[in-house]
C-alpha cells in the first residue's frame, strides 16, 4: 500500500511531504484510528477507539485503568484494520500492543508496538 504521509511529530498531526508505503502506511492508519473517537464517523461506525473519550471523561484514574482502556483500543484497531485490508496483504496489521509507559494523573504515555502479517515490527511511543 502507498499513501500520503501524516506527520505526527508536531503539536498536531499534519500532512507530510513524503509518501508512506507498505506496513508504514498500515501503521499510520492504525495511529489515526487510535486517535479517532469511535462513533464519530457515520459512514464507518466501528472506526476509532474509546481511548480519547475515556481519557477526557476521566476514566483513566491510574495506570491499570489506562492499560485496560488501551487493550480495548488495540483490539478495536486491529479488527478495523483487518476489515479493510486484503487478507493476503503481507503489510496488513496482525497485532497491536499498547502499553502505558508513564502516567502522571493528567497525561499517559503509551508505547505502541505494531506487528505486520509478515512479522515486521514497528514501535511507537505516543502520549495522550
Amino acid at each position, binding site marked *: 500500500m502507498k499513501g500520503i504521509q501524516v506527520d505526527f511529530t508536531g503539536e498536531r498531526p499534519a*500532512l507530510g511531504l513524503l509518501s508512506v508505503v507498505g506496513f508504514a502506511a498500515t501503521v499510520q492508519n492504525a495511529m489515526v484510528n487510535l486517535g479517532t473517537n469511535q462513533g464519530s464517523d457515520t459512514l464507518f461506525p466501528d472506526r476509532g477507539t474509546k481511548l480519547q473519550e475515556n481519557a477526557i471523561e476521566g476514566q483513566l484514574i491510574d495506570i491499570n485503568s489506562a492499560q485496560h482502556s488501551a487493550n480495548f483500543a488495540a483490539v478495536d484497531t486491529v479488527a478495523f484494520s483487518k476489515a479493510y485490508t486484503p487478507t493476503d496483504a503481507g503489510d496488513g496489521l496482525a497485532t497491536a500492543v499498547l502499553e502505558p509507559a508513564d502516567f502522571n494523573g493528567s497525561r499517559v504515555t503509551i508505547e505502541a508496538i505494531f506487528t505486520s502479517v509478515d512479522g515486521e515490527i514497528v514501535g511507537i511511543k505516543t502520549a495522550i
Partner: protein
Amino acid sequence: MATPINFEAYTPAVADVPEARVLTVRARLETWLKQGWPDLDTRPNSVYGDLALTPLAYQIAAAEIAAERVVSDLDLEQVASGVIYNCDVVRQFLRNFAAVERENLKATGSIRLTFSSNLQRTIDRRTLYLFGTTSIFTLRLPGSGHLEVLPLGSVPSNINQRVLTRIDATRYVVDVPVMGVMPTAVLAGDTATTDNLLTGLIGMTAIGDFDPGTPEDSLITLAARTRETVYASSLSTRGGTGAFVRKEFPDIISTSATISGDREMLRDTVNSLGLSDGRIDVHVKSKQAFLSDTQLVRLTLNVAQDKFVGKLALANAPVKIDSISVAADAAQSLAPVIYSRSLDPVRAPLGTAAYTALEELWLVIPMPRGGDTLPLIVTQTDGSTVWADFLVTYRFDPGLAQVGSVLNSPEVKPVGIDIVTKTFVPCVFSSLTVEFVKPAGKQVNVTQARTEILEYFRTLNYPNIYVDSAISDALLYAGASGVKSVVCNATVQWSVASKFLPSTAPLPSVDLVAATAAALTPPLVRMLTTAQLVPDYRDVNLGTGNATMVTVGKRNIGYLLDESALIFTEYAP
C-alpha cells in the same frame, strides 16, 4: 431550445444520502481505482481514503440519486402519483404528447340563452360571450357550422341544433355549452354580454359554476390523462371511452362505460350471424351535478278523462323531479304521473332510454276536485283547448348534454358502435340513519361528518363501490368512538317516470286511456341494509310482455343523498 436542467433541483442534501448507498459507491470506486493504481491506500483512516475517496463517494451517490430523479420526472406514472422534482422538465416532456398545462384555457360551462319569442335563430359559432370584463367564452359545438336554435316542438336533424324550451308564459330558453378563458370565476347566475345580440335574446346566464378546466395539481392530472391518452384513446373499449371523456371534459368527475355482455347492458342485441352488436352506455357525472331548475310546463286538459296531459319538455334531461305544483297555486296538492317513452326504441327501448336524450317524458295530472266536485285548478282556454300551467322543479346534470353531443358527433363517433350517454341510475335515499357512539366528555363534530358523508355519496361511482368503513371513518375523524349502526332506506329510481310506455302504445295526448292501459310499471328495488347498496338487478321479466328493460349494477349505480335524509343519532353508553 432544450430546457436547462439544474442539478440542484434533483441532488439530495449530503445528510439525505443514505450511508449504505455511499458505502456501496465507495467500494465500487475502490475496485475501479485498483485498475490503475493498485497500490493506492484507499482504506478508511488513510489520507486519500478519508479526504478524497469518501467525499467523492458521497458526490457520486448524490449524482446517481439526482439522475434517478430526472428519470422519475420522465416516468408519467411517477408524475401522475404526485412525485415531481422539476416542474419545468415535466412540462417540457409532456409537450411531446401535445399535452399542455392549461392555465386559463378551456374553462367550460353552460349558458342559458333566454328569448322572448319562439322563433328559429342561427347563432354564429364565433359569437363571444363575456362575463365581467375578462372571462370570454365561445360556443362549444360538437359539429362544424353554426348553432341553430329551433322553435318549441321541433325535432333536431343536425348535431348543432337545439330546441327551445318554454320556461314560463313569455320566455323560451336553450342551454348551450361554452368554453373559453376564465381569469375570474364565473358563478351560477352570472349574466353575460355578447357581441352578437340577436332579436329576442333577453338573457344570457351561467348555469352552475363554470369549471376552470385546470385542476389544482395541473401537472399531476395532466400526466395521468396523458398516460390514459397514450395507452387507451379509443372509444371502442370500456377503458378508452372513460379515458376519452376524462380528457375532453375535465369537469366530469365520474364516468363508467357498460358494454355488450355486461349485466348492466340491456341494449345489446345479437344479429342474424350470432354476433353481438357494438353497444356502449357511457354514464357520466359532472362536478356540478345536480343543478336545480324550475320550469313552467303547460298541460292541456283532457276533458273526457278529467286529467291534464302534456309532454314534460324540460330544458335538460332530469335526474330527479323535486316538485310539481300549479303555477297559480303552489299549495294545491296534486297526484302527477310521469310516463317515459323512448324516442328510438331500436337503439334504447323502454327503461334503457332513461336518463338519456332519447327519453321523452309525459306528465299526466288528474284534476283535483273539492268535496263539492268543483275543480280546484283554474284553467285557461282559447276556445278550442283548455290548459293550465304548472311549475316543475327538477335536478339535472349539465354535463350529460355536453358529453352526449360530442360522443355522437360525426368526427368522434366510432364506426359500428352505438353510444348512448346517460347519467348514473340514481339510488335515492329516503333516509340514511347513522348511530354513533359519543365518547364521554367529548364533542362529536356532526357537521364535519355530515359534510364528508354527503360528499362521499356525491362522488361515489364505479370503480369505487360503497363500503361501510367510509361512514365509520367520517365519524371517527369527527370525534366519535365508533359507529353502532348504519340503516338505510333507499330505492332505485329507474327513471323520473313511474311508468314506461311501449313503442306500440299511443301517445297520452292521443289516447290517454290506451296509453295508461299499455303502460308498464318497473319493479321496486328497495335497499333496507347497507349491504344492498351495491345492487345487482336485471329485469326478471326480460323476454316477456311485462319487461321494462331496467337493470342496475356496480357499473351504473349512482347515489342521491340529500342533506335532509342523512340522520345522525347519538348513542351514549
